[in-house]
C-alpha cells in the first residue's frame, strides 16, 4: 500500500496556480525524488503536501488517511517531517537544542534519538553545544535533517538537501539519506542534482509547468533518452 498518495494536486499563491495536477505516490521505505526545471513546482509540491500552501483541488493521503490541507503541527504528529531548503536551523540555539526542538511534540525521554542522530552525523556530536548558525553549510544541513528525524517520521521531506554544498558534502549527505532510508524512513526529496538523486531513487517524478511529465523508477527515468535530453542536460 502506498505510504503517500497525492492525486491531481492544484494550488498556488494568491490567484496564480503553480501546481496544475501533480501525482506523487511512494511506498513506505522508498526514496522518492522530484526533479524538473526551475519553476516546475517542485518545492511548491512539498509545501502543498506539508500544509504550508493551500491545495485548491486534489487530495493527499498519508498512511491511508486523508490529510489534504492539514496544518503542519498535525502532519508532524501523523509522521511527516519537513526540512526546508533555507533557514532550516534555529541559528542562535545549540545543535543539541535544535534536535530537542525537533522532538517538541514528544513527551517521552528522547535521548536515545539524539544519540541516533549523532550516530548518523558524527560531526554534530562534537559541536552539540555550538550555536547551529555558526556551523558550515554541510553541518547545518546535518542539523536540519537531524532535527526532522527527532519525531521518528515515517516520511521525511527534503527540499534540495544538497543545494549550495561542496561535492564532498553532497556525496556525504546523499550517503546519509540512503542510510536513513535503510533504517526504515521513507524519503521524498526535491533535488537540483537530478542525476545523482535519481540514481538513488526508487521512484522518480519529473515535473514541468506544475504537472508530472515523467514518472517511473529512478533507473527508468535515467535510461529514458527523452528525460535525459529535456531535463538532465543532454546525454552522458
Amino acid at each position, binding site marked *: 500500500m502506498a505510504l503517500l498518495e497525492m492525486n491531481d494536486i492544484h494550488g498556488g499563491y494568491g490567484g496564480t496556480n503553480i501546481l496544475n495536477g501533480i501525482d506523487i505516490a511512494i511506498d513506505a521505505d522508498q526514496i522518492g525524488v522530484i526533479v524538473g526545471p526551475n519553476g516546475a513546482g517542485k518545492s511548491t509540491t512539498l509545501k502543498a503536501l506539508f500544509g504550508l500552501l493551500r491545495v485548491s483541488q486534489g487530495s493527499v493521503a498519508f498512511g491511508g488517511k486523508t490529510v489534504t490541507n492539514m496544518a*503542519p503541527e498535525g502532519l508532524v*504528529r501523523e509522521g511527516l517531517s519537513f526540512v*526546508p531548503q533555507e533557514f532550516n536551523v*534555529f541559528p542562535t*540555539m545549540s545543535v543539541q*537544542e535544535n534536535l530537542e526542538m525537533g522532538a*517538541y511534540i514528544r513527551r517521552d525521554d528522547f535521548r536515545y534519538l539524539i544519540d541516533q542522530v549523532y550516530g548518523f552525523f558524527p560531526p554534530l556530536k562534537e559541536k552539540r553545544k555550538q550555536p547551529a548558525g555558526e556551523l558550515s553549510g554541510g553541518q547545518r544541513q546535518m542539523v536540519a535533517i537531524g*532535527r526532522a528525524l527527532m519525531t521518528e517520521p515515517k516520511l521525511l521531506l527534503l527540499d534540495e538537501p544538497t543545494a549550495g554544498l561542496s561535492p564532498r558534502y553532497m556525496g556525504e549527505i546523499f550517503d546519509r539519506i540512503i542510510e536513513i532510508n535503510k533504517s526504515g524512513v521513507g524519503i521524498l526529496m526535491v533535488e537540483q542534482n537530478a542525476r545523482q538523486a535519481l540514481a538513488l531513487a526508487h521512484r522518480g517524478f519529473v515535473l514541468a509547468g506544475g504537472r508530472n511529465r515523467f514518472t517511473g523508477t529512478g533507473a527508468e527515468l535515467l535510461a529514458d533518452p527523452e528525460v535525459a535530453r529535456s531535463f538532465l542536460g543532454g546525454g552522458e
Partner: protein
Amino acid sequence: MEQGVGLLAALPVNEVVFFINKVVIAGLIIGSVYALGAVGVTLIYGILRFAHFAHGDMMTAGAFFALIFVALFPTAGDALGLPSAFVLMPLAMVVTALFAIGIDKGFYAPLRAAKVRPVVIVMASIGVMLMMQGLIRLFAGTGTYQFDAGSKAIYRLPVMGRDIILTQPQALLIVFTALAAIALHLFLTRTRMGKAMRAVSDNPDLARVSGISIDSVVRSTWVIAGALAAAGGTLLALDVTLKPDLSFNIILPIFAAAIVGGVGQPYGAMAGGMLVGFTETLAVFNWSVLLRPLRPYLPDIIEIPNRIAFVPTEYKIVVPFFILIAVLIWKPTGIFKGRVLK
C-alpha cells in the same frame, strides 16, 4: 600603617558615599524598573514581531491591580514585616498576565490572523495604549496614590560615619529583579517552553514545521511580559508613588533599554535597563560634590560651581531619548546583536 590610615582619612568619604547613594543605588533602582519592562518589550518583539507601545500602561495597570488587592487585604504583609503591596504582588502579576492575554486575544490576535503587516499591529498597540490610559483615568482619576510601605524599614550600611541607605521597597525591587533575571535565564535555557520561545524567536517558520504550537508560545510570552510588567509597576509605585501617568515617563527609557540591549535579546534588555538607569542617574548627578574635596588644592581663581550636571533633573527624559538616537545611528542591532526594529 600610620600612613595608610592617613590616606584613608584623606579619602572624601562623605562624597563617595553620596555618590554611591545618588548614582549606584539610584541607578540600580531605576535600572531594575526599566529592566523589568524592557524584558517584556523585547520578548514580545522577538516572538510577535511588533513594538508593544502599550507596555508602559501594562505596568501602570499591574500597579493598580496591586492597589486593588491592597485595598481588599490591607494587612496582608504585616505578619511578614513586608509591604502588603509586595506580598500581594504575585496576585497582581497573575491578573496582569491574564489581562495581557485578553488584550492579545481581543486586539492583536485578530490582526495576526488577518496577516497584516507588523506596523499595523504597532498602530493597534498605540490604540491599546490610549485606551488603557483612558480606562485607568476613568477608574482611578488623575490623582496620586501612595502604597503603604509597611514596616518602613530602612537598611543602613555605615561607611566611616556615613550611611549607604536603602529603603525596604528599594531592596525588594533590586532583589526581585535579580531573582527574575535568574529565573528567566533558567526558564529560557532549561525548560521545554522556554526553548520553544527561543525557537519561535529564532525562526518562526521552522518552529511551526517542528510542530511547536505557536499559540502556546504566544500565551507564555504574554504571561511573562505581563507578570514582569506588573512587578515593575508595583515596585516602582511602592518606591515612589502611583500615578495614572506612570507610563508616560517610563515607556521611552524602556524602549531605549530594549533597543540598546539588542531587540529580541532578554539578557540584553536586562543589561540595557541597567545601562539606561545608570546613564540617567550619572547624567543628572551633581558632579561638583565630587570636586569639592579638591578645593584646597586648586588655585583661588578656579571656582567650583554649585551645580555641575550634564542634564538638569527635570530634563532627565532626554537621556534615554539621546541613547535611543545614538544607538539607532551607530549600532542599530544593540550591544547584544538583536534585530533592527522596523
